[in-house]
């Protein structure tokens, strides 16, 4: 025991500079706040093992510790997979590894000495080495495409995605220099082109959601935080998905490196293309960000959707009139002609002045998502009024203008201004600002 750590009770001095928070707001009425912890303690019995040395942790146990060998861990793992033991199948293991993604890349890989304090923990934390299953002499996981899609969706939701859509790769929707090549078996970059093997044809699209109470405070640092939070949610979920797919024994690749993701998300039925030339989702509206994983895991795919957005956007124009950069089109009809040489023609939409949008954000040094947060489809789900309005907008397109007027009347789609901006710090919000149950069908 380190003598310096053994502080007698008489030496503990009450610190009058400590300020306590209002404890009444933390729990329901039946939880009492008290001055000392309810566990009885005796400082004279206090002693701490010295765990600062990874090389020689002091073992005070009376019996020798049984440390599993690496071979025993592998044997245990393989047995669970081969015998399909509940909770130890390959999808279960793949989910475990995927859920450990960020821990692995920080604590696990940096040789943190805490990993060696309890023998066995280090092996578990570092057991990313156990995948892909082929390295254990196992084959890749096999299932019918429908079952595979179900497992993928369940894993994606657990790993942080709000929704999932599945589609197939489209040679028209690849960046310049990216080619699907039947002659290669791995993704290959020869300096001029990126060649994609034909077997990698399924695209899993994940959806992150921007916290609505933050993006309502657009044009401020809080609004920018909301915009970034949506991207973080997306990024974390699809990076984890890549590990999950690899844990099943298949190839997985970040599609955004080689292709735009919006057309894939639309093709996968996650939304329609709206006036702002971005995807609008029928549940979360425009407050969404998209991730996509290219894989060779055979999957059942989704179809595109139609929830009446094309008709609605003809009449609404709320995003265009709210855009602080005046970058969005107020045209009465979509058109084929691009307005910037970097835009890709071949779709009839409201091509926007992208440079004005980027320049405005750059000049303010702020990420802007005004168009997405003012969209009448960008709603939470705490009142059924929104579902009624969405049904009306979807099935009765003639009511479009009236619904937009009602949206304005009820005060929706307004960017928070003035002192109300700071009220965010007093709001009661869910974890990460997003209701993870929104849109879930029971």
């Amino acid at each position, binding site marked *: 025991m380190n003598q310096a750590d053994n502080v007698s009770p008489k030496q503990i001095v009450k610190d009058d500079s400590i300020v306590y928070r209002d404890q009444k707001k933390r729990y329901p009425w039946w939880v009492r706040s008290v001055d000392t912890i309810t566990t009885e303690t005796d400082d004279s019995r206090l002693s701490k093992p010295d765990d600062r040395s990874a090389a020689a942790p002091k073992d005070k146990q009376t019996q020798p510790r049984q440390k599993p060998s690496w071979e025993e861990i592998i044997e245990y793992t393989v047995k669970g997979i081969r015998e399909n033991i509940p909770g130890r199948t390959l999808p279960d293991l793949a989910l475990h590894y995927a859920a450990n993604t960020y821990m692995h890349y920080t604590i696990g890989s940096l040789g943190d000495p805490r990993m060696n304090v309890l023998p066995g923990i280090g092996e578990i934390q570092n057991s990313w080495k156990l995948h892909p299953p082929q390295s254990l002499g196992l084959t890749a996981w096999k299932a019918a495409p429908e079952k595979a899609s179900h497992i993928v969706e369940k894993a994606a939701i657990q790993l942080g995605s709000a929704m999932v859509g599945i589609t197939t790769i489209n040679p028209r929707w690849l960046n310049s220099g990216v080619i699907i090549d039947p002659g290669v078996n791995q993704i290959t970059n020869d300096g001029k082109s990126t060649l994609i093997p034909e077997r990698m044809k399924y695209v899993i699209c994940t959806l992150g959601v921007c916290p*609505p*109470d933050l993006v309502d405070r657009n044009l401020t640092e809080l609004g920018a935080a909301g915009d970034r939070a949506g991207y973080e949610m997306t990024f974390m979920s699809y990076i984890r998905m890549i590990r999950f797919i690899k844990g099943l024994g298949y190839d997985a690749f970040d599609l955004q490196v080689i292709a735009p993701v919006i057309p894939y998300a639309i093709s996968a039925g996650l939304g329609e293309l709206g006036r702002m030339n971005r995807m609008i989702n029928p549940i979360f509206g425009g407050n969404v960000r998209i991730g996509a994983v290219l894989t060779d895991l055979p999957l059942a795919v989704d179809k595109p959707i139609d929830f009446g957005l094309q008709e609605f956007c003809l009449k609404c124009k709320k995003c265009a009139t709210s855009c602080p950069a005046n970058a969005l089109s107020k045209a009465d009809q979509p058109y084929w002609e691009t307005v910037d040489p970097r835009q890709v023609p071949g779709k009839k939409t409201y091509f926007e002045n992208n440079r004005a949008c980027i320049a405005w954000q750059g000049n303010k040094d702020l990420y802007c998502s005004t168009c997405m947060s003012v969209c009448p489809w960008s*709603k*939470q789900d*705490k*009142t*059924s*009024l929104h579902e009624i309005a969405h049904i009306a907008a979807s099935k009765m397109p003639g009511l479009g203008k009236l619904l937009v007027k009602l949206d304005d*009347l*009820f*005060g*929706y789609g307004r960017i928070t201004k003035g002192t109300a901006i700071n009220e965010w710090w007093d*709001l009661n919000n869910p974890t990460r600002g997003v209701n993870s149950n929104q849109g879930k069908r029971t």
Partner: protein
Amino acid sequence: MRNYLLGVLSGLAGAMLYAVAPQIAWYFWVLFVAGCLLIAFSFDVFFGSLKEHQSRAAWLGLIMFGGSGAVLQAAVWVLGT
């Protein structure tokens, strides 16, 4: 809990209406049910919008839907009984 209480109150109001005017015309019952639904909906909009931090929508919804429901109830109780 809120929906449960609204349902109980609606049931009690209906029982009271029947007790006061058992021979009331059928179309008053339609108005009564419509009024109950509108009032219940106004509570959904009010409390839901407050949870979404949309106070303007909350009060407007309460006035619009709750007010309409109150008007229908008034018509039933004044004209029907």
